[in-house]
């Protein structure tokens, strides 16, 4: 994909910064803003250094108002800019919900293509960082179910960079959810130059024959640990990183399940009406006759993510995934 590019070790945070930096340098219509995004560089330091480098008109602080942030981005996009906005935490996107569902997702359809909204709404999601309420949720379904949006979740620094560049280059509105739990936990060699990863395509991370495991974001690392446990047990599991939540790459999943006959879906968000439900329904539609066991969901409780002292109850451990794998294989 990127022949001969220099590599650099990056965290997910650095990969996101790098993607923004590259695109800001390359395309003068790109602006990025949000609460504390400018001077401070964001509460997770994702935009650190970018204001100094690209100027105050391109990287800046906004007033504290999420509907204002997304809504002005919609206006900018209609006027020809390509805004990338940051919502500070997953739990603080909701004030912007009307602008997202009624406008960011729909202007192109409403105007029969006259106006586009090439914008990215990025925010950290997920638990595991000992945070207050509203800071730990995984509500990707709320976006993925909305016609007109695409939802992307990277799981590694490499993917974060390549997917974010694709998201910024997309002419559609992209919800870009960053697994904050592993913001700095994973370091990986990433090409220094620009590259893209297609939106809507899952990736088979490791091949296996007994069972397919689908996960994304911070759950990939946990799933990999679970696969190691399973392997010791003689179970050969295939791991698929979904990468995009909508549109789902049903083909890749179907192909895998055709081979393994069994499927475990892992995600942090609530079980009921969760991503696993949709994958379960799709797989049934696509490869019903190959299914040797019901799809197993290893997913969040239908509860609010507890405050830190209770979070271990909620968070999905490698063991719990492994448990799900066993359940599926032994069905």
């Amino acid at each position, binding site marked *: 994909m990127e022949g001969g590019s220099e590599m650099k070790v990056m965290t997910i945070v650095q990969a996101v910064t790098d993607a923004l930096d590259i695109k800001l340098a390359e395309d003068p219509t790109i*602006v990025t803003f949000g609460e504390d995004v400018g001077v401070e560089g964001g509460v997770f330091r994702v935009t650190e250094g970018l204001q100094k480098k690209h100027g105050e*008109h391109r990287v800046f602080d*906004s*007033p504290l*108002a999420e*509907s*204002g942030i997304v*809504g*002005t*981005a*919609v*206006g*900018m*996009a*209609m*006027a*020809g*800019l390509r*805004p990338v906005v940051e919502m500070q935490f997953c739990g603080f996107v909701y*004030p912007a919900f*009307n*602008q997202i569902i*009624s*406008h960011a997702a729909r*202007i*192109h*359809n*409403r*105007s*029969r*293509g*006259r*106006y*586009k909204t*090439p914008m990215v709404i990025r925010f950290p999601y997920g638990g595991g960082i000992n945070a207050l309420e509203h800071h730990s949720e995984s509500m990707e379904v709320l976006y993925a179910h909305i*016609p*007109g949006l*695409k939802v992307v979740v990277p799981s590694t620094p490499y993917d974060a960079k390549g997917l974010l560049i694709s998201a910024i280059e*997309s*002419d*559609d509105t992209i919800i870009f959810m960053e697994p904050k739990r592993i913001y700095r936990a994973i370091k990986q060699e990433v090409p220094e130059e620009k590259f893209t990863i297609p*939106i*809507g395509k899952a990736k088979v991370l490791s091949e296996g024959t007994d069972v397919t495991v689908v996960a994304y974001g911070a759950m990939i690392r946990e799933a990999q640990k679970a696969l190691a446990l399973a392997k010791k047990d003689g179970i050969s599991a295939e791991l698929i990183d979904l990468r995009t939540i*909508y*549109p*789902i790459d*049903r083909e890749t999943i179907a192909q895998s399940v055709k081979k393994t006959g069994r499927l475990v879906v892992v995600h942090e968000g609530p079980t009921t009406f969760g991503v696993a439900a949709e994958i379960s329904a799709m797989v049934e539609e696509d490869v019903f006759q190959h299914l040797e066991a019901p799809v197993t969901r290893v997913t969040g409780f239908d509860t609010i993510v507890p405050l830190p002292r209770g979070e271990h109850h909620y968070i999905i451990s490698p063991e719990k995934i492994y448990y799900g794998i066993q359940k599926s294989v032994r069905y």
Partner: protein
Amino acid sequence: MFKEFSPLEDKLFQVMDKDGEIIAPEWMPEISDERLVKAFKDMLFARTADLMAVSYQRQGRMFTYPPNFGQEAIAGGMAIVMRDQDWLVPAFRELGAWLAKGASLRDIFLYFMGYEEGTVFRGANNMVPIAVPIASQIVHAAGIGYAINYNKKDEVVYAVVGDGGTSEGDFAEGLNFAAVWNAPVVYIVQNNQFAISVPFKKQTRSINIAVKGIAFGVDSIKVDGNDIFAMTKAVQVAHEHASSGKGPVLIEAVTYRRGAHTTSDDPTKYRTKEEEESWACYDPIDRLRKYLVKKNLWDESKEESLISEYKKEVDRQFEAAENYAPYPLEDVFKYLYVDMPDDLKVQKVEHEKFLKWKEGLK
């Protein structure tokens, strides 16, 4: 102007009284006689189209429609000032402004006949679609204003909202962003005294809407929205203010929704005939006509035949809309994304399979 007519003292900016007399000549905007007559004719055309829309709807030839009756001078004033390169960010009740921007009446009818095509306004440069979710467009205007500054363009954004809309959080957020970013936006609140059935007094406890601008450091003025001269002058000053880098302006245009909220609404439920009549003498078209007649710029006897000409034109546009192509299945899917997901393609194909099967049923 903003100082002389401070909304804090609830001053009303007025140039012409209800009898068409100029009561504040020092504030009279410069408009050529010709342009003024055009403004009158445009308002008359808009009213003709509006009244006919209501009757088309009654005939079952169109879906719900929101009448503009009585509010025509607001768009009239905007029309005089707005340039081709300026942006119009509409709400849904400013027909005259849409027409002035270049939207075709046929398209507008198409919208209320149930075609998305009707809100594209292809002929209208820099006009965005109608905003149904109240006040959400106020925020877009700030963003467009940011983009104008960013690209150092000579453009002003006109954004419209109703009195009810000023209660939405987005009204506040939008004004705040526009102010902080010094965006060149002219916000026009059509205070027609009602949000469906809810009267202004139940919407807010503030003395007027213009004072709301103060919350955001935005220069604001309360204008007689049925006075074409006051509206034009206020919009001129606001335009100049915004485009010279002084930031957004808020104009409260005081008017009265003489018709129903929409064709589905029945105002007798919540307001009296007396109240309605008390506003009739402030009708914006009547007032301008009185002025023009006094100035010998208009001959009332010609009006009837002009209106019947307009009616024919409106009918022509309406029929063009009625004869618009049917809505293909494809259009349900085609525009949702620039890059359409396979899923959607499959859903369309599956539906076509069903349609074939259904054919076979018969």
